[in-house]
């Protein structure tokens, strides 16, 4: 597979803040590539530079082999872009907006096909102002597909949506990928990155700190699984840490996460201790490690604070 996006040593500085700090990565044809990180990590800035709507201070970006800096319009003709927040023309209908955006490109997909693809049949004659958040986001994706692009850029496409709308959008994205398009997506939702992405770049403070397949990232950093619970009363960190088979732990207020390479051993030890000291444990459950845990391990912070 050949690379359709190549980014080398990208830098962008705003005042004292290094929004993008020497970022390099490449995206292969046909894959869903995710950029995962907290707000302000530099995801959007990076993406917008690749899209050609923002200029970098340094570095080189090739999209479909074209230098974005020198031929931005040529790149824009062949990509589809969905921005983080766009409220569109409030008094135009879904169909009218699709027609309008189609007119900006040499060739456009029929509006009806896109309406069907994103499931807006019922709302095709509704004005944009009357659409729900999920419907607006779906329209926004339809608009990004209006030129039948080779690469689709999605900037936090499910941010602030309810689970139902989120699943709708995920299936649209999966369908698009099945059609052979490359998808570059930013998100701060772990589930989204784990479910959709073939490869994920974890970005923090403008730097990429890890790139790989989601399960590789997890298994690379965690052989163990996690036990989570809440404590009824305070207890020393050392006591928890010294439980059998615990490799690492995290204590946030009363919420505890124990990483263990032998869940049964640790659970037994935990139960014994709780009985002995009369400590109440609530909301206890066992799960495998996630990208959230990887992020936590790499940065010492949770992705959403």
């Amino acid at each position, binding site marked *: 597979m050949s690379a359709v996006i190549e980014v080398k040593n990208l830098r962008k500085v705003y005042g004292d803040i290094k929004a993008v700090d020497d970022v390099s990565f490449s995206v292969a044809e046909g894959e869903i590539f995710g950029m995962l990180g907290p707000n302000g990590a530099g995801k959007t800035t990076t993406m917008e530079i690749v*899209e*050609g*709507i923002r200029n970098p201070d340094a570095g080189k970006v090739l999209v479909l082999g074209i230098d974005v800096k020198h031929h931005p*319009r*040529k790149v*824009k*003709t062949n990509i589809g*872009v969905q*921005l983080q*927040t*766009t*409220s*569109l*023309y*409030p*008094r*135009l209908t879904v169909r*009218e907006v699709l*027609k*309008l*955006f189609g*007119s*900006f*490109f040499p060739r456009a997909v029929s509006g009806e096909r896109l309406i069907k693809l994103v499931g807006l049949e019922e709302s095709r004659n509704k*004005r944009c102002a009357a659409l729900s958040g999920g419907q607006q986001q779906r329209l926004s994706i339809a*608009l990004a597909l209006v*030129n039948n692009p080779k690469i689709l850029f999605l900037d936090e496409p499910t941010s602030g949506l309810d689970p139902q709308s989120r699943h709708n959008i995920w299936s649209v994205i999966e369908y698009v990928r099945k059609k052979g398009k490359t998808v570059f997506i930013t998100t701060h939702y772990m589930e989204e990155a784990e479910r959709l992405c073939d490869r994920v770049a974890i970005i923090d403070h403008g730097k990429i700190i890890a790139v790989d397949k989601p399960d590789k990232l997890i298994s690379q950093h965690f052989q163990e699984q996690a036990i989570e619970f809440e404590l009824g009363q305070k207890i020393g960190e050392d006591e928890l840490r010294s439980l059998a088979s615990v490799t690492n732990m995290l204590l946030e207020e009363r919420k505890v996460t124990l990483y263990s390479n032998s869940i049964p051993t640790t659970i037994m030890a935990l139960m014994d201790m709780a009985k002995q000291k009369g400590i109440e444990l609530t909301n206890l459950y066992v799960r495998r490690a996630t990208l959230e845990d990887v992020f936590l391990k790499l940065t010492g912070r949770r992705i959403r604070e």
Partner: protein
Amino acid sequence: MKAFRYLLLANARQFLREKAALFWTFLFPIFFILIFGAVFSGGMDNVSFDVGLVIEDDSAIAQNMSDAFGQVTAFKMTSGQRDDELKALQDGERRAVLVLEQGFGETIAMGGTANISVYYDPTQSSSVQILLPIVQKVVDNIDRALSGSTPRVQLNEQTLQSHSLRAIDYLVPGILAMALMQLGLFAVAPIVVDRENKVLKRLGATPLKRSTMIASTVVFNLIVAMMQAALIIIIARVVFHVPMMGNWLYLIGFIVLGTLTFLAMGYMLSAFAKNQQTLMPLIMFVQFPMMFLSGIFFPLEMMPGFLRPIMDAMPLTYLGDSIRQVMVESSAMHAHLINIGVLAGWFMVCLIVAVRFFRWE
């Protein structure tokens, strides 16, 4: 070209589907004309003043005088005794009372100067301002007759009015100019909203050229300007018989130039406004002085002299003047070339500043 057409269509749809925009663009200027028109034409054109006449002299000259006043159509003359008429004046039944005292004719026959006393209420300034010049005119005419050049007293009432336009004739071209100013200045509001809502940024992620975007906005507003002008001219003509005397091509030319100038000014203002909330006060700050200091509602001669430099700087002064010249052939404040030059100058300055400072996001 396809993009231009669809953007034009999108502009039109967005505009037609917003009732507030339709109101300010089309109904507001019409209200202005109807209200001002009703005030001026109802109040001034068909008015007649009750004037009392007291003649205490029985000479032929006094009789001539009385006849002459009787011919003034703006006056409804009543003759009577001095005490009765003055009482009527105090009761508000007369606007003025003219008294020719005994010996009036004799004084003139002797070659002296005879007085006509005019009683009026100085607080009724609006009617007095109209009344006194008419009386003066009649007296002047008699005077001239007596000095020998013309034997008969001839009152030519037309000469009293023909020097000045009717108020509505003066007003309508001004309202048209004002409407164009508002159109141009407010045309940028949707652009600022689009910028705020990241629509401009989204358009920037397509191959659409910015020049196409600007061209569609400019052409759309020129079309609206033409419709607005047509509506104003038609209403003014049908309701108040305001004529269109000059060359239509000149008129269209000035409408285009005016719209472009104020569009450029609007773009300039939008370059300094972060969002719609900051844009609106900025537009108000620019438009209100222009509305009142550009001779739109009343001639600039009526304004105090110290404001003159400001009035002379405002582009609306020149747009109003040129449209007024073309439409009702008012006496020129400036030559057309000066008007065109000043408007074009403003256009260029605003354009340069706008290009330099306008931000797309």
